[in-house]
């Protein structure tokens, strides 16, 4: 099988998984998810994927310039500092995946609470870090942008 076909199959499988996760989450809630909530949920998955790939261009598009970011250690980062951190300091990250999410829509403001994990290599050793996050999104100039993001280590 050619690399191209493998790539198409892999992309299709990824889309199916993401779609299934989205539908399951909505079904668990018992009510259909609002369009705003569904759009932001999709953006959260894109964020995780872009962060893993260090895709600064993609991250820049859905992060507001006035973003406030509180890292898992309590440090405050601006948008520029966050993007620099992603570009420079995460050489060993192998996977960033969202485990669960609850999306609360308030008109043009959406709050997302969830758990994600990060797998990677640090000093030659494999690590797994799980964290809670709370992100706030706003609908600005025709698109959703993240205006606040915070994370903390998940209590074991």
């Amino acid at each position, binding site marked *: 099988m050619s690399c191209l076909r493998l790539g198409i199959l892999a992309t299709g499988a990824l889309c199916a998984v993401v779609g299934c996760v989205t539908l399951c989450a909505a079904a668990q809630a018992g009510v259909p998810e609002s369009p705003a909530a569904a759009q932001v949920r999709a953006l959260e998955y894109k964020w995780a994927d872009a962060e893993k790939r260090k895709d600064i261009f993609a991250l820049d598009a859905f992060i*507001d310039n*006035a973003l*406030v970011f*509180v*890292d*898992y*250690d*309590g*440090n*405050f980062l601006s948008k520029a500092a966050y993007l620099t951190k992603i570009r420079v300091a995460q050489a060993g990250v192998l996977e960033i995946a969202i485990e669960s999410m*609850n999306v*609360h829509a*308030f*008109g*043009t*403001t959406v*709050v997302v*609470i969830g758990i994600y994990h990060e797998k990677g290599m640090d000093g030659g050793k494999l690590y797994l870090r799980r964290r*809670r996050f*709370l992100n*706030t999104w*706003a609908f*600005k100039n025709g698109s959703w942008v993240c*205006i*606040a993001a*915070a*994370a*903390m*280590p*998940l*209590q074991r």
Partner: protein
Amino acid sequence: MSLIARVALAIAALALAASTTARAQENVNGDAGTKVLALERLWGQAAHLRDIKALEAIFDDDFVNLDIDGRLMTKAQTLADTLAAGPVDIVVESTGARVHGNTVIVTGVLHLKGLDGGKPYARSGRFVDTWLYRKGHWVVIASETTPMEH
């Protein structure tokens, strides 16, 4: 409750009532940040005094709270937790507000001192609060506090 605490509670309640009345007639795009920061201070006072009525007015019904211990709580759970908590001193410093239309993001650092099981503790965290102008007044819809590593 001491006399000083009662007086402070009454002042906080009056200030909250007055600001609520005024807010309903004001433009959300005006000095939203200043108003929300004033409400943040009221929130701190109300939590310190365990003024549940004041807190009920500050929290949206769909309020979600991720506290410094990583507990995810609803409005009802946060109110119950406030009532059940032991005496705690809360000092908030270096707050800032960013206005995004009908939404305001407040960040800051808080220091907690109290007793847990008879033992003193001191903790610090960086918080992010999300406020929304809803039905004529400002309410907090989400709060998160990340413990600060020393």
